[in-house]
């Protein structure tokens, strides 16, 4: 939390800046390398908003990037067009990534927030055979 400043120590208009300094080529800079300011939500964890969490099973992922495109909170971590994992500091457990995942079985599934990750993976469903 930023220190509590007096009325004369703000930028007029309650304006907050995303970065501590001027930035260049921000689109090609990875999130962890950006000079985010303390008032930017990147530095705030909202993971405790979740009651269910998405678990990623890389065995079935085809790197289609649907989850990355559809995530409303930029919480799918992708590198070089490969799905890497989930940013659990910002994921709010909405389940959209699971909904849009096209693989069979899905490569992302929702589980109880408190369930052990290995146990989640161990309980992954089998391929769902198409009905003839």
């Amino acid at each position, binding site marked *: 939390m930023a220190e509590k400043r007096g009325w004369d120590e703000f930028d007029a*208009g*309650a*304006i*907050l*800046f*995303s970065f501590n300094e001027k930035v260049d080529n921000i689109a090609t800079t990875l999130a962890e390398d950006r000079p985010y300011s303390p*008032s930017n939500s990147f530095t705030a964890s909202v993971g405790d908003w979740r009651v269910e969490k998405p678990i990623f099973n890389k065995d079935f992922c085809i790197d289609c990037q649907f989850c990355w495109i559809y995530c409303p909170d930029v919480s799918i971590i992708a590198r070089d067009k490969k799905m890497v994992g989930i940013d659990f500091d910002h994921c709010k457990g909405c389940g959209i990534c699971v909904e849009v995942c096209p693989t069979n079985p899905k490569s992302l599934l929702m589980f109880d927030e408190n369930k052990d990750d290995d146990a989640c993976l161990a309980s992954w469903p089998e391929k769902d055979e198409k009905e003839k």
Partner: protein
Amino acid sequence: MADKMDLLDVEVWDGNMAASQAMRQAQIDVVAAYPITPSTPVVENYAGFLANNYIDGEFVLVESEHAAMSACIGASAAGGRVATATSSQGFALMVETLYQASGMRVPIILNVINRALAAPLNVNGDHSDMYLGRDSGWIQFNAYNAQDAYDLNLIAFKVAEDHRVRLPAMIHQDGFMTSHTAEGVLTMPDEEAYAFVGDFKPMNGMLDFEKPATYGVQTEEDWHFEHKARQHNDLMTKVFPVIEEVFDAFEAKTGRRFDLITNHKLEDADAVIVAMGTTVDTAMMVADQLRAEGKKVGVLGLRVIRPFPFEKIVEALSNVKAVCCMDRSSPHGTVGMLYNEFCGAMYNSANKPVITNYIYGLGGRDMTVEYLKGIFADGLANAEAGKPTTPLQQYIGVRGPKLSFL
């Protein structure tokens, strides 16, 4: 590239056209508007200029006044010169976003063509909408005629966009009485008017990719008070010096002088009328007639309503014996705003004039020379008696039994 419009030195314009021409000359980046009587021609004229290639900027037609001001806020935060116009019910619908604009410190220019508020529905001029906006954190300029509307638009851009100020500003003019009355208006050539206003200088642009900014944050009990305090501090201490600087520059350019208050023969006046809008011009004419009869009367016009020129008023009324505050808005359960403000200004001053309140002109009812003579007569009687000789609040020009309170 927009075409230049050749103007005569004196054009016959109504207040709406005067405002639209000043907006055109300022070369605004975005106008988002939802037309409403009597401000419709401001937007209509502007659209005509756009269609005829006199404007380079964007013109956005939206679905409501709430949307109009919202689009203006977005465009202004993004980093452009922005303006719009409205009246009455449209202004009322804009109110929520007016507070957003001033709180975010975006320098939008809003022409308010003053009109009564329903119910009952009425399209004519009074100051109800102006009063509704007086706590919204905007700078409020007051035009008495079409010339003022033109001049104050150019002045308002320069004041609001100044980085020491960065606050939105309204220019008020009386619906129909100013907005639809054609008068001779002294003009500036396009290039001179634009040079006076100057290029828009972005500040904290939301879409500055090197330094992106978040607008419209949420602050609760541990932050909100500080932001509002900052906004009030800037209104109280930073706006008047810039306004006076711009008034001086405008006089140097055009010879036309504006001041925070219009001081018409106040120095030796016994009785003074305080008014806004077209009533100021009429009251000054009546004061001159009464002066010719040897009566010591004067007029104080409020040129800048917010911030309220408290100290200028105390100084200007330091020898006055009676003040008649004329409010053109229903006070709905108390005294009028001008009465309250002027009592507040004078209460701790060395001079304590008798102050009375007049409610007049609601829904476009005329304020006549005879009514004004009667109000001056009341004021002179109060000055002579050293105390009120009438009830504190009187209704002027309403049919039925005489209506007064307090």
